[in-house]
């Protein structure tokens, strides 16, 4: 208590109502793609520039094929909107995406935007109703471009993206830039939880004639509430079961018989209770539950609730005028406050859902804490590995070749370490897939660093083991599309590439040995074809670059290593970088002789 909405969402209160007004105006001005307005903040005289987008109530702008207009988004301008493990790319509503793409060209060129950027003014993208999704996507577009963080405000916006979408936003730390205002009964923020149907069209038609002002009081449709909210309730109860740790296999069997909406809330939600109070919620699971439960049927009959669910979509301006600036704002994160729940009129069952949502977040943090001991174990094992590598270097063979020979007890112990480490990282992978770790886990510096260290040190041993057992004969080369390379390395590599904003596959230094081994095999099989020659050149270039930036360890250069022996055997005409590499080998040899390693 005691805070205004502005405080909680990090935006001046004075901006919100003018932004809402502009959003409603823009929505009903189909002739312009967007409207712009500069708002002066009284106390510090800074300016905020608001862009608000027009809307459309045509069914084709809301739905499409396949069901729910599901479209994978992460290409080009939205490269962050993907899961860094198995989860695939984020899914968004394709019709909304299409409308965004119609607008983005002109928006990027807008002189007001350029000016705001130059003068370092805060930019806000705002949208009412179907203008909301465009505001959301535009904000993301500029966040990806790393322009000074724009903000997004929506009012009665439908849902845009799926669970991965929200996960990616939170992972990137962008979630707080998005604020969505939702009236307690407004049907539009809930509509995407239900597949498109005649009921959808009825609702959109009704608003279309209302907004077009052709008909001030169009006859409201009826009978849609049970359909739309029934489907929304399937989504909510399914998620609630998962949050509550339901272990009944029927849950997922039955899910395969129906098609649940993929869309989930993301960002910060501000629920307008209708009595002047605002409730701010950030936990996405809690938002979903509130969306459904606060619009439940109470004492009043279905027809009344149905009418309210339409009327409230047009009530944002009056509602916000009343309650902004007042301090009647409650943040639900960090425990549901009973008083608030009274305002939202939530049932005891709904309260349990909220507790489950909160507990889920707590559990993820706890899982991370519990995992620390495994991460410590990783450090311990990596240290053993490092020693193993050092000892191997003294014998001038290198740990790669020593491991491949498996002659010594040390090699055996290294193998045990390798397998134990694999167990831990596989587990991390599995937990990420189940969203059992915090969303920003894959962005944490320490995790990326530890993973990269692990990948560079241990993956060569997996490769050694692979070629020692000639597994390529059974499964094909170590590195092929979805081939035998363990997924844990793929993911860890991806974390680093994502963090450095590099393309997928550019950080494959841990695969150096696999390239060498496979080339050796392929040369025997095919001889020096053009393609092979190019691959040799690539290996040489990689070697020089990676030794240079120390992402590849120099013991590949040891005189007796598989690499040096193989490379020396190559006919001279295939070794364009011969001098350079001989020099590196020479330097290495000297270092070992002197017993010092730089």
């Amino acid at each position: 208590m005691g805070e205004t909405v502005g405080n909680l969402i990090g935006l001046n209160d004075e901006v919100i109502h003018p932004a809402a007004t502009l959003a409603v105006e823009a929505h009903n001005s189909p002739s312009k793609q967007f409207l712009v307005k500069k708002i002066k903040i009284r106390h510090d005289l800074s300016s905020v520039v608001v862009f608000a987008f027009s809307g459309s109530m045509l069914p084709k702008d809301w739905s499409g094929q396949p069901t729910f207009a599901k479209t994978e988004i992460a290409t080009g301008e939205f490269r962050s909107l993907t899961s860094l493990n198995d989860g695939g790319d984020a899914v968004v509503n394709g019709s909304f995406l299409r409308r965004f793409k119609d607008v983005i060209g002109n928006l990027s060129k807008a002189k007001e935007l350029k000016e705001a950027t130059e003068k370092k003014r805060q930019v806000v993208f705002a949208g009412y109703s179907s203008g909301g999704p465009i505001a959301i996507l535009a904000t993301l577009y500029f966040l990806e471009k790393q322009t000074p963080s724009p903000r997004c405000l929506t009012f009665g916006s439908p849902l845009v993206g799926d669970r991965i979408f929200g996960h990616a936003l939170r992972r990137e730390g962008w979630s707080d830039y998005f604020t969505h205002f939702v009236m307690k009964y407004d049907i539009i923020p809930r509509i995407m939880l239900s597949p498109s149907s005649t009921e959808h069209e009825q609702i959109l038609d009704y608003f279309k004639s209302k907004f077009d002002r052709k008909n001030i009081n169009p006859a409201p449709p009826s009978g849609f509430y049970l359909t739309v909210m029934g489907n929304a309730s399937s989504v909510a109860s399914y998620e609630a079961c998962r949050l509550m740790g339901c272990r009944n296999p029927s849950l997922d069997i039955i899910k395969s018989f129906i098609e649940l909406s993929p869309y989930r809330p993301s960002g910060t939600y501000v629920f307008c209770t209708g009595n002047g109070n605002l409730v701010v919620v950030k936990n996405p699971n809690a938002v979903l539950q509130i969306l459904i439960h606060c619009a439940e049927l109470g004492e009043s009959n279905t027809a009344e609730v149905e009418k309210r669910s339409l009327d409230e979509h047009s009530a944002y301006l009056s509602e916000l005028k009343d309650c902004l600036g007042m301090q009647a704002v409650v943040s639900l994160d960090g425990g549901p406050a009973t008083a608030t729940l009274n305002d939202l009129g939530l049932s005891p069952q709904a309260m349990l859902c909220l507790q489950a949502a909160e507990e889920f977040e707590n559990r993820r943090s706890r899982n991370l804490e519990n995992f620390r001991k495994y991460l410590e174990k990783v450090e311990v094992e990596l240290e053993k590995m490092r020693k193993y590598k050092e000892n191997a270097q003294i014998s001038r063979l290198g740990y790669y070749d020593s491991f491949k020979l498996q002659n010594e007890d040390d090699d055996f112990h290294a193998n045990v370490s390798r397998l134990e480490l694999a167990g831990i990282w596989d587990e991390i992978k599995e937990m990420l897939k189940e969203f059992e770790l915090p969303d920003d886990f894959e962005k944490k510096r320490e995790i990326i660093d530890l993973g990269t260290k692990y990948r560079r040190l241990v993956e060569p041993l997996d490769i050694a083991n692979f070629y020692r057992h000639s597994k390529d004969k059974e499964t094909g080369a170590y590195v092929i599309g979805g081939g035998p390379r363990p997924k844990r390395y793929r993911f860890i590599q991806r974390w680093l590439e994502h963090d450095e904003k590099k393309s997928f596959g550019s950080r494959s230094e841990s695969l150096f040995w696999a390239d060498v081994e496979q080339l050796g095999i392929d040369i025997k099989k095919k001889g020096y074809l053009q393609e092979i020659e190019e691959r040799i050149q690539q290996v040489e270039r990689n070697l020089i670059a990676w030794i240079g930036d120390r992402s590849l360890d120099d013991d590949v250069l040891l005189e007796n290593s598989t690499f040096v022996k193989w490379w020396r055997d190559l006919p001279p005409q295939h070794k364009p970088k011969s001098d350079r590499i001989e020099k590196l080998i020479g330097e290495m040899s000297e270092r070992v002789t002197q017993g010092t390693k730089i």
Partner: protein
Amino acid sequence: MDTETSLFESSEMLATFLSSTPVLQDSWRLCSLANTAATVVTDHVRGVAYVAFPGTVLPSGEANLVALDGAPDGLFPPLQHRHAQHQNEDPPMIHAAILDHFRSFYTSTTFHNQILAVIEKSKAVVMTGHSMGGAVASLSALWLLSYLQSITSPLPVLCITFGSPLLGNDSFSRAILRERWAGNFCHVVSNHDFIPRLFLAPLPSLSAHHPHFVLQFWQLLMNILQSDSERAKIFGFLLPYIQEWVANMEEECVKSPFSPFGNYLFFSEEGAVCVDDAAAAGKMLELMFTKASPGSSIEDHLKYGDYTEKASWQLLMRKSFTLGEPPESSYEAGLALAVQSCGLANQESISGPAKDCLKMAKRVNRLSPHLNAANLSIILSKNVPYRAQIEWYKASCDKSDDQMGYYDSFKLREASKKGAKINMNRYLLAGFWDNVIHMLESNQLPHDFLKREKWVNASHFYKLLVEPLDIADYYKNGMHLTHGHYLKNGREERYEIFDRWWKEREVGNEENNRRRTTYASLTQDSCFWARVEEARDWLDQIRSESDMRRSAMLWQDIDSFERYATRLVENKEVSMDVLAKNSSFTLLMEELQDFKSKTQQFPPQFPAFLNGEMVP
């Protein structure tokens, strides 16, 4: 561990989810069509096939239990198959009359064609039925699940019954659980419906008092289902029977042999809960019946349409807590709400036991499946050294001067420290994997557990590496002399389960087509050595066999073993240790060729072994 998971009671939320889907209403719609038409009805809704069985067809035959494996036509093979380790349990049994009734559908020529035609163009299948039709739907779903398993089809199957009578005994219920099919069944039971409770009274008393009671009951019921006008008359006729039945049930001197299986979705006037534990479901059937009147017990059997329709909008009602403030703890609050939804909140004498019952259902496993899988992974990685030591052992045996390979080295091991260590590792790993199987079969692991390559691969690798040692140990200790050969009598169930996991895994298109150019690191048939031992036994028998006919049969067996072994060796699916100079396989082959050349009866089929080319 308690704080981790006993936080929430999800039985009511699951019921809400079920009621919110269109599956229940669509099923009921088709059931009532089937009842009116008195025949099987099929339909497609949004790509899902629905098959409804009429509840109006009269079963004939006796009201007792028959064992499934006694059936001559081999229905539901996965449920019949019982491994040696379960031999002390009762066999899975089901109600004889219902089985006969199902058979009357099953044997009709149209049944298979009808079902196969329906599933061909669907992405999922729902089998459904009301009353007796529900029991038939259950058996049809079991048949379909068995069939799909035999052709490894992933088509999802769901069985939804309305007011179905109990079907089988406890072993039957457990066999279904073991196949991981329990989640495919949802039995809807309305408040006081009498039929699902019918067989809760001990059968002997039921049939002793009224031998024709059940039969008559169905007959009358059938009339009600088809016409409402008979209702009053029939009620008057049935009520005394039911009263007596209730009296019998309360005596409870003999326990009913019947047991629920799958999920039970209980509907009351207040709401719904869904329970998947057999014992809890059985108890709930009793508890919710305590308030029933003879009238409501028949009425409710006929009111599934009302219940499902009401459930679809009741879930959007804001329900308040009827008895004061909800308890502080979220788990207790969830329990109290669930009991309220069963319509039992107002009677303390029942609400207490009902809570215990829901607690019991949850007790089985407090950790969520995903966390279990996570912990298991950690334990797996701790078990890795045991496995690595066995690998190391194999490698060192394979390299050793005695050239026996690890199978024979382990079989002939003296009391050495190394051998004892490996033997201990073998036990530790067996314990670990048995626990994994146990957790899987009792639903403590995620439903898609077996879709995780890691586990299927790890279990397969374990099997290939360790089963040869089990075989070696079996023959070392002379178990085959007392118990018979390993393959039929000594093989642990876990290996059969792993065989199935491996067979059912999703295979990428890359695999399987590749021909090996070097010998495999582990022999790809983990029972290879058991087959070698059997062949060795046959050869010994031939030497002493005088009966020509017997001897010819033995030669046939040896021949087929030889073909099998040759194929494996040629495809390089054996590991080097098999071909070691002194391995029992090499010795057997040499002896065989030697024996053949002496008897001159058969041309040698294994030239490679004669000149020793394949021996490294």
